[in-house]
């Protein structure tokens, strides 16, 4: 395969996977006796039908960009971060603490400090995984899983012990000075809960790309991911790299938690199960080919599908879980892109015939 073919594949494979996923989803709906066109129309209507819904779609996309970046960043350095879920949770706890307690800070500074706290907590939680892998050789998947559960129970315990008004299932609210919302934007979107967090998420994507591809530190991490032994031979600090990579990865997920607390809910609920953004981040990163821009696009697709899904129930009586099937099919076709390569080849052949004619 030459370079040009590879470039078109990077673009076309996800596109074909998405189209195939949606098409097969339609077939499944037909088999179930539903009307797929009405369902997809209802989905889009839910996602974009009003300024409010449009704003809520952006709200849905925001944490997905961040947890997607977390998974993608680790993947680039040869690590599978299945722990974005836990990093997200400790990030939300840290920003809740700063948002509630550090009221001595002025408006903008308070919000910044609360986001930074979320990033640091996530970074710490991620670094633990990196440390266990680098220094003790423990598989990152198992530490991630353990830390996810520990985070769930730990965050619940802390919220119940320090932030819960008697008899409530949600914490006290963070101070308004720590809000990430901007009043006139909120008004523009008819009070949808979108916030400055979306901009933060996009800035994180820019940082992701810049750091990996324009700095020495990023080059080292990519080298470690590409071939650990070669990186070691070239004199790079492989173990330090693993800890650093997991810390940065965790920071992205931690910021996602902070944005949910400071920009959406303004409180933290007692959770019975994890919110799932960490696991969805895995899908987002895979759809996005673990690239910064791709991850943003992956999050956009995923956000539209998951938020719009609720509309399918009312618009066409289709169970919203259908969307998970579509997402699964998209990821599956991307993973096993060999299945759809014949399609890209056919496209290329047709284009060449046209050019020749």
């Amino acid at each position, binding site marked *: 395969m030459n370079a040009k073919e590879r470039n078109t594949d990077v673009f076309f494979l996800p596109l074909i996977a998405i189209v195939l996923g949606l098409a097969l989803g339609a077939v499944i709906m037909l088999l179930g006796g539903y009307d797929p066109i009405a369902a997809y129309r209802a989905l889009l209507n839910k996602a974009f039908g009003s300024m409010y819904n449009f704003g809520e779609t952006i709200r849905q996309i925001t944490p997905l960009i961040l947890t997607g970046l977390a998974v993608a960043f680790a993947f680039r350095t040869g690590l599978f971060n299945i722990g974005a879920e836990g990093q997200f949770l400790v990030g939300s706890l840290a920003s809740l603490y700063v948002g509630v307690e550090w009221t001595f800070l002025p408006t903008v500074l308070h919000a910044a400090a609360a986001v930074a706290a979320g990033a640091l907590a996530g970074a710490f939680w991620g670094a633990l995984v990196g440390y266990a892998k680098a220094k003790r050789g423990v*598989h990152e998947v198992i530490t991630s899983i353990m830390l996810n559960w520990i985070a769930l129970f*730990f965050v619940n315990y802390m919220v119940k012990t320090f932030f819960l008004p008697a008899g409530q299932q949600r914490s006290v609210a963070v101070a308004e000075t720590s809000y990430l919302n901007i009043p006139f934007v909120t008004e523009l979107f008819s009070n949808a809960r979108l916030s400055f967090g979306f901009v933060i998420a996009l800035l994180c994507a820019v940082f992701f790309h810049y750091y990996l591809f324009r700095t020495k530190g990023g080059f080292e991490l990519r080298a470690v991911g590409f071939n650990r032994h070669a990186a070691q031979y070239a004199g790079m600090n492989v173990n330090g790299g693993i800890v650093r990579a997991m810390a940065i990865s965790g920071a992205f997920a931690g910021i996602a938690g902070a944005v949910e607390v400071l920009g959406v809910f303004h409180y933290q609920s007692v959770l019975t199960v994890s919110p799932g953004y960490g696991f969805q981040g*895995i899908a987002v990163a895979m759809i996005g080919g673990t690239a910064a821009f791709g991850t943003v696009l992956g999050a956009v697709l995923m956000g539209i599908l998951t938020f719009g899904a609720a509309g399918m129930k009312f618009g066409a009586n289709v169970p919203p879980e259908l969307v998970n099937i579509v997402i699964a099919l998209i990821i599956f076709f991307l993973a096993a892109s060999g299945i759809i390569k014949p399609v890209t080849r056919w496209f290329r052949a047709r284009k060449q015939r046209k050019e020749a004619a």
Partner: protein
Amino acid sequence: MSGWDIGSDLIHITLVYATALMFGALGGLWSERSGVVNIAIEGMMTIGAFTGAVVTYFAGSPWIGFIAAAVAGAIFALPHAVASVTYKADQTISGVALNFLAVGLGLYLTKLIFDGQGQSPNLASGGTSLMIAKVQIPFLSDIPFFGHAFFEAYPTTYIVLALMLVTWYILFKTPWGLRIRAVGEHPKAADTAGVNVYLVRYMAVLTSGAFAAMGGATLALTTTASFSHSTVAGQGYIALAALIFGKWHPIGAVAAAAFFGVVTAVKFLLPYIGLGHVPLDIISMLPYALTLIVLVSFIGRATAPLASGVPYEKGSR
């Protein structure tokens, strides 16, 4: 309750709650020993729980449901085998896809079949219970302490322990097992020796799906009595952790799964050991924290099968 009773109860409840994890961990083992990473245990268990609950409801027998679950699990694992073996996909990504698919498919079909309900009908309520019942082994269950602890259990517990021994025997004592392990460690060498790498991996992944799905069915048919979004709820990931904790050895994996089961048992028994006032969150956290500490301080480097996660290309070196 006396100390003996509590100890006996602890083992009893541990076995009840660890059984599904044991199935899941053994399931993961088959696939990973052949060199195919299986992060989809969660999804396979979900399909098993769904099939087990639904088929039992319509067929009227939990054992038909249990066997149907195993078959459904193998069928569900087929795409993972096709992707990872034939199309040389990234096995982690394929596994992630299967986990999403299972949750989506399970709930979509549940709502389709049961008129929009997000949960299958309760198998324990109604005229006669459709659940798998506990068995008391004659004579053995009369032994003090051990009787209640080990010989008064759901049949699924005995099935999984038997499957553990079968797995161990096949993997380490038969030519078929030698082939699986060879394919997982050094597929090129196995190929040269005339082993059909693709066939071995397909069989291993399908077995994996069947085993893990039996774990899911165990949940639906012994403890939760129905299928909903919270039936499996992350236990597949714990089974995966148990597999790694148990160092990819059948007995190790089952022992590690039992360790995680202890937690649930301890939670039930807290009031009887004078710790009723300790916050449940702290207790729930302990096993995972303990596992982490044990792993970081004593166990160290995990020894995954060498070729795990590496697609095999015939003729490659």
